[in-house]
């Protein structure tokens, strides 16, 4: 039986956390893109796309991320796709992130007061021009802090992909814990690494929000 030193454990965990980072980035970027598409559907003039988006949000926010991961993993398999845990994890996290991001962003667009709409209409702008030149630029400013804040949820969400067998930080933790018989140290370190990833994002989100509040 091999003996694990503290340094062994730490280096293994740090090495595995690159997958946590990569998956977080993929989920956040992919989720953001999908959310952007959904957002434009939701804030357009037609009503039914908005309703569909709301249903989408309702479903993905109203069910456990773990179930979404399972369904992606086994569902993609049924479609005849050869699913790796990486693919299933990406797919589920993107769909899940998009649901939260589109809801956050829609809220920001809605927060732009009626006065802005009326003022720009009075200048003869059409709907698209109002969106492009008046509403969206302002909504974007509002959207930055909560979007950064949500990135923390994404990083934490990636931990669940260990359950479908994706080898990232949490999975490395369970493997090392079983092999080293030092669960306290291992999970303590895993927690600290997650904290090191998430805390700066949390602080950043809070700072941005405060700055925004002062500016208003």
């Amino acid at each position, binding site marked *: 039986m091999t003996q694990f030193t503290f340094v062994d454990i730490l280096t293994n965990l740090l090495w595995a956390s690159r997958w946590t980072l990569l998956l977080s980035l993929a989920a956040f970027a992919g989720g953001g893109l999908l959310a952007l598409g959904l957002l434009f559907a939701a804030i357009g003039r037609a009503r039914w796309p908005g309703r569909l988006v709301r249903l989408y949000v309702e479903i993905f926010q109203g069910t456990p991320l773990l179930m979404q991961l399972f369904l992606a993993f086994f569902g993609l398999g049924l479609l005849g796709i050869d699913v790796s845990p990486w693919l299933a994890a990406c797919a589920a996290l993107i769909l899940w992130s998009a649901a939260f991001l589109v809801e956050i962003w829609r809220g920001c667009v809605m927060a732009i007061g009626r006065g802005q709409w009326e003022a720009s209409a009075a200048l003869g702008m059409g709907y698209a021009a109002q969106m492009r030149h008046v509403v969206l630029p302002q909504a974007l400013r509002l959207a930055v802090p909560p979007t950064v804040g949500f990135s923390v949820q994404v990083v*934490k969400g990636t931990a669940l992909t260990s359950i479908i067998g994706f080898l990232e930080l949490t999975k490395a933790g369970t493997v090392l814990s079983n092999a080293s018989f030092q669960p306290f140290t291992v999970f303590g370190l895993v927690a600290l690494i997650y904290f090191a990833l998430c805390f700066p994002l949390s602080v950043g989100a809070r700072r941005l929000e405060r700055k925004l509040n002062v500016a208003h």
Partner: protein
Amino acid sequence: MTYSFDFGWLASYWPVFAAGVAMTLQLIFIGGLLGIALGIACAWARSLGPRWLGTPVAVYVELIRNTPFLIQLFFIFFGLPALGLRLGEVQAATLAMVINLGAYAAEIIRAGIEATPKGQFEAGASLAMSRIQTFRHVVLVPALERIWPALASQVVIVMLGSAVVSQIAVEDLTFAANFAQSRSFRAFEAYAVSTVIYLGLAIALRAALMRLGGLIFPAPETAR
């Protein structure tokens, strides 16, 4: 595609699913109640309490909010026995949920407390109430009322997050789905059904909490 869905077989597993739902509800009932209580105490400590208490509470809140629930669960269940604290699966899951919700609830409730008009504290003081009495009888209920929808959402989030307690062999709804799929090898159907049940639970839990809010906060909306 050649796969044909079959949900019929699941009918024979309904007692397993029912037991799983009962466990999930039990966890969120106890975890929710104690978690909100912990959240109130921590919110008080951070907004009105002495500094020697506020600082460690802030550390606790940040630690929890910036680490995954799954790791908190593993740390409690696998890690704490190293310190001599060995908990059963259900106890560990409940404790993890209380600690997790407590941290989020603390931040939500703190916002409610900090939105209290200064005059409310002064009115309490001028009636010779102590600071703690003023908090308990004057500040707390309107503060909770202000943030109740956010708190209700957080409880729902914790309930959905509890799906991972099956990882330490707690026999909750997810455990039921795992069990059914391992026997039948029809994983997609098993998880689809449990997902729908979770969705129903989430909607019902939220509705119940909002209803509860209506009972706890009977006063009509103030103009303020």
